[in-house]
């Protein structure tokens, strides 16, 4: 009882700090923090499939990009109906669910595959979506190569501070959902699928249903990450959301921090955001070199990610005392 109330107090403290943080930071720092929340949501949503269920979805960026595009397209289409802010709120809420539904739909063909085949097929899928979205044939809807913008009457309302709170909310909701999943029946089912799918199925776990639910949630959260990115940046193009660099982003962050935990992807996103922002502003020519070296070292030294190593060290220390 006492322990859980102490835990609650700690969470409340962190929450208060996060809410008050915009008052204490410069605009640049708020920018970086907003990016961090978006990336962390992306990494967390990836981890539902990649970490909990053991399906390496290299096309996870599709959900992120579609979320951004859906938000922009919906608010453009609905703009005639209502006050701009109502439209924005409605299309924001809707975009995540549409992307979630899309994830559920593509699960029908893709979940026939497993392991390595699933990873490559999803990686191919993101390139295909990239081609379709940037094609001339669809440019009336998606803006082709040049990309898509939020309608001006809505993007007027977007600034760094409210983007911060939007991204923070999405991030907190994702954290909550993920920690709920881990301690639930769904989490248990997903873990059993990761360890041995055939054994899980023959022991009566309805694997198909749980897998579909997992990809729905994963797509939903990534969709909201994309939509908050769109609100924040007000413009995007296929290169920013569907390119292969983005395709490897969620998985690298999750693996960097440590998959299968809530903390891991968040830690990965912290490191990635800091390193990336520092490099991009100071030595842009060596960005990939430094990120590559970080990935290499983590891969060689700490296969369970940073959180895994930290756990190991604390366990050893606990054994000693």
């Amino acid at each position, binding site marked *: 009882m006492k322990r859980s109330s102490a835990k609650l107090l700690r969470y409340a403290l962190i929450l208060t700090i996060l809410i008050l943080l915009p008052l204490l930071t410069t605009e640049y720092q708020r920018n970086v923090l907003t990016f961090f929340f978006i990336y962390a949501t992306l990494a967390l949503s990836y981890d539902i499939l990649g970490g909990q269920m053991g399906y390496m979805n290299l096309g996870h960026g599709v959900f992120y990009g579609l979320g951004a595009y859906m938000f922009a397209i919906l608010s453009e289409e609905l703009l005639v109906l209502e006050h701009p802010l109502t439209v924005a709120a409605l299309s924001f809420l809707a975009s995540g669910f549409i992307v979630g539904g899309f994830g559920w739909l593509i699960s029908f063909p893709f979940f026939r595959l497993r392991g390595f085949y699933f990873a490559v097929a999803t990686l191919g899928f993101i*390139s295909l979506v990239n081609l379709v979205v940037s094609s001339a044939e669809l440019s009336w809807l998606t803006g082709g190569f040049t990309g898509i913008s939020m309608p001006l009457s809505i993007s007027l309302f977007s600034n760094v501070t409210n983007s911060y709170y939007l991204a923070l909310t999405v991030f907190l909701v994702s954290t909550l959902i993920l920690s709920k999943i881990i301690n639930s029946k769904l989490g248990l089912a997903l873990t059993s699928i990761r360890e041995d799918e055939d054994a899980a199925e023959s022991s009566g776990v309805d694997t198909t249903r749980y897998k579909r639910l997992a990809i729905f949630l994963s797509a939903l959260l990534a969709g909201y990450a994309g939509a908050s990115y769109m609100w924040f940046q007000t413009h995007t193009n296929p290169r920013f959301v569907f390119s292969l660099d983005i395709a490897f982003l969620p998985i690298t962050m999750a693996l960097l921090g440590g998959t299968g935990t809530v903390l891991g992807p968040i830690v990965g996103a912290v490191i990635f955001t800091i390193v990336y922002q520092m490099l991009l502003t100071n030595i842009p020519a060596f960005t990939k070199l430094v990120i590559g070296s970080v990935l290499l070292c983590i891969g060689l030294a700490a296969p369970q990610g940073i959180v895994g190593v930290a756990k190991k060290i604390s366990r050893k220390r606990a054994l000693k005392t």
Partner: protein
Amino acid sequence: MVTITYIIENIIDGLVLGGIYALTALGLAIIYRVIGVVNLAHGDFLMLGGLLAYYVFTLSGGVFQGATPLLISFPLIFAAFLAFGSAFNIGLVKPMVKRKPNEFLIGCVLVTIGASFLIEDITANLAGTLPRGIYLGLGPITIGEVTIPQFRLISLGIVCVLSLFFHIFLKRSFVGTAMRAITQDREAAVMMGVNVDFISTMVFGVGAFFSAVAGLVYLANGFPIQPYIGIPLTVKALTVIVVGGAGSILGALLGGIIIGVAETLTGSFISFYWSPAIAIILLIAILLLKPTGLVAE
């Protein structure tokens, strides 16, 4: 106008492109089969091989004519990439082999994608980001009504000879037999005295060499070499080996040729924009029909 001649010429172009894909995928496939590593830096090996050939070509351009620089760069590539691939394996992959399968896989993804980023950025900073291309200056050959550029024929020759050589190598040589033994039953191979560490290193070297030769053919066919082509080519090679059936040698060849021909035909008859899409559509369609690829293990 679409004539038979035009179609034949396009199919030959497609075969050459397919040959490039097949060579890259062959390297990726044997590395995956024997060591279990999905080498995400594989396309960067191709890029480096092409770059090496480019420098040989430009440096010796005043002295030699025609295809001679390509022949010179061949042994150079062989030596350089056998060493490079072996070093890559010893330095980066071997330290992880003892891990649990799941951790090994994660480690491989991190290490190879990290290596790919490193190679890409170092190359971009040292060699510049300009596209590097060469013109061999060989005239075309006309057979009947079909006109084929000579370098296409040379490329097809290289691809055929190398595949044949590889087949003989697998069937006849000691290292090749050991490779096959490892893919069939790793533990039994160890008990029969196969030095798995050494064979793995050799496999990585040979795989890197195949990819680098694909780079040479890529360059010789007029495709420009740029530091950033690595990852898209890795993805293409992955597509090829999955279409063919992961890790199967025959599958890699078959998959490469199917995708190369399909891409070229789409490019010529539908639109160049959609030619990369056909590979992915084929990938998804084939996997839906046969979830383990064309050639089952």
